[in-house]
């Protein structure tokens, strides 16, 4: 059975406007899938719908099966049971995604305790190990620090550590590097890439940045105005885009690279 099946997902707001229109895709265990689109394409809403966390006022229709549970129609209790255990999320803006009044260590300890049942010394060691894994080596200081005392990149690493502490089968990364400095972006992407490979986690990577997706995801879906306009292996999309919109995306990326004087495949 697929890890995640999205079939004919549509998201509408209260006025009836369609924000996501008949989107379908699947994610198998261990897959690396990308959702590409500009702002307003509905990609983040899709991710929220998948976890059953759409903001109030928006309704989803269609079918979403995550870990076997219908994330649109199931009760809140069943959906809560799926979150974290089957799929966890890393969000775009780490400053607001972390609890501002809780030290980083405690925030990581939360999922460690909940999903791996750790406590006391074992828990403390696990927190340190988690911080090590995301390359935050000054573990004691970082564990005690509040989010506002950390840099953007450090916060996002903490967020990744929290998400992985759930030992999920699927990690959903919603534009995880967009809010970070360019120099830090590459490090975070590399980190994600490695961790996902190490743990065998499936990855659903959402971004507007085509080159990023090329390095991270094996297949991709291009969204525009809420609809899937192209899909397939990432390399195929980049080298032989069939949809005109996808073509313009690829063209812009190539022009940018050429301006930087870099060769890209």
């Amino acid at each position, binding site marked *: 059975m697929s890890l995640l099946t999205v079939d004919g997902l549509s998201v509408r707001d209260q006025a009836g406007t369609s924000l996501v229109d008949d989107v379908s895709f699947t994610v198998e265990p261990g897959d690396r899938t990308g959702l590409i689109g500009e702002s307003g394409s509905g990609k983040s809403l899709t991710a929220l719908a998948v976890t059953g966390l759409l903001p109030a006022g928006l309704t989803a229709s269609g079918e979403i099966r995550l870990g076997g549970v219908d994330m649109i129609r199931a009760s*809140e209790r069943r959906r*809560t049971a799926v979150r974290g255990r089957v799929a966890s999320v890393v*969000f775009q803006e780490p400053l*607001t*995604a972390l*609890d501002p*009044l809780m030290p980083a260590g405690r925030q990581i300890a*939360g999922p460690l305790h909940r999903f791996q049942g750790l406590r006391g010394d074992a828990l403390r060691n696990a927190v340190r190990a988690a911080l090590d894994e995301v390359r935050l080596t000054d573990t004691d200081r970082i564990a005690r620090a509040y989010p506002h005392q950390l840099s953007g990149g450090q916060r996002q690493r903490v967020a990744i550590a*929290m*998400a992985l502490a759930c030992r999920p089968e699927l990690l959903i990364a919603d534009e995880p590097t967009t809010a970070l400095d360019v120099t830090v972006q590459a490090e975070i992407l590399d980190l994600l890439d490695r961790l996902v490979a190490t743990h065998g986690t499936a990855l659903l990577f959402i971004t507007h940045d085509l080159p990023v997706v090329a390095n991270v995801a094996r297949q991709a879906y291009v969204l525009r105005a809420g609809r899937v306009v192209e899909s397939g292996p990432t390399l195929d999309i980049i080298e032989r885009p069939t949809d005109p919109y996808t073509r313009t995306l690829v063209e812009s990326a190539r022009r940018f690279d050429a301006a930087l004087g870099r060769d890209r495949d």
Partner: protein
Amino acid sequence: MLRYLLRRTAILLVSLVLAAVVLFLLLRLLPGDPVNALLPVGATPEQIEAARRELGTDVSLPIQFLNWLRDAGTLDLGRSLISTLPVGPEIVARLPVTIPLTLSAFVLAVLVAVPVGVLAAVRADRWYGLILNAVAQLGIAVPAFWLGLLLITVFALRLQVLPAGGFPPDGWSEPGAAIAALVLPVGTVALVMSASLIRYVRAATLEVLGADYLRTARALGESPASALRRHGLRNASVPVIAVLAVELATTFLGAVVVESVFALPGLGSLLVTGIRQHDYPVIQGVMLVSTAAVLLVGFLGDIVQRLIDPRLLQRGAS
């Protein structure tokens, strides 16, 4: 944190002195020579001069202030112009009524307002959430004295289960009677206070419910209730604590009106009487004590806020 403590304590002390200055000026600059309260019409200049010396108004204003400050520092708050009794002990005698009244009402209001406010926020889309909000809306429009009157009418006059006013002359040596006398006043103040507190708690909780970190908690498998408990309450408490400090301050002498309704011999009624009689040593003494209490509560509130939210320590001013 230590640096903030020192700075905040300095501000507290400066505020106390400044408040004393403001009080002093407010009263001294009011029209009417206090001597007139003491002497009959047609007094001789010598008598007036003697009275002035007695009152201490024969020296210049700044010296008057320093004298008063020195006296206040040694807890000598002067004597009432009307009764000639010393003000300090008079204030102390009133505390066994005002302090239990204020504190009990405050605690009761918080115990009611926090659960109700949180419920009103979490269930803001259900009908009973709306009702709770409407009730709070109603509550802040109700004048305390009207509510007091209503409670007296129902419980004291109609049902006759509680006294309509007054406080046992022996005070707390009759604990049963003292408590009975305070039930309705405490209830009145608590109800009025909780109405406005509910609105603040509700607003703070709504703010938190929409926050990103709550969404992260849910995304990592926390139930809505657990997420709210673990993350929401702490974050919502900071603005609420700021409000609580102000509300406690307001209660302290807002109970003034309630003491009048229930004829309680507390600090508030002492103040009202002093104002009616232009007895300014009394007015000054009571206002100084209550202002000091208010400033102290504000000080404690600021400290507690910063214990919970260290971000507040970073921004410059308090």
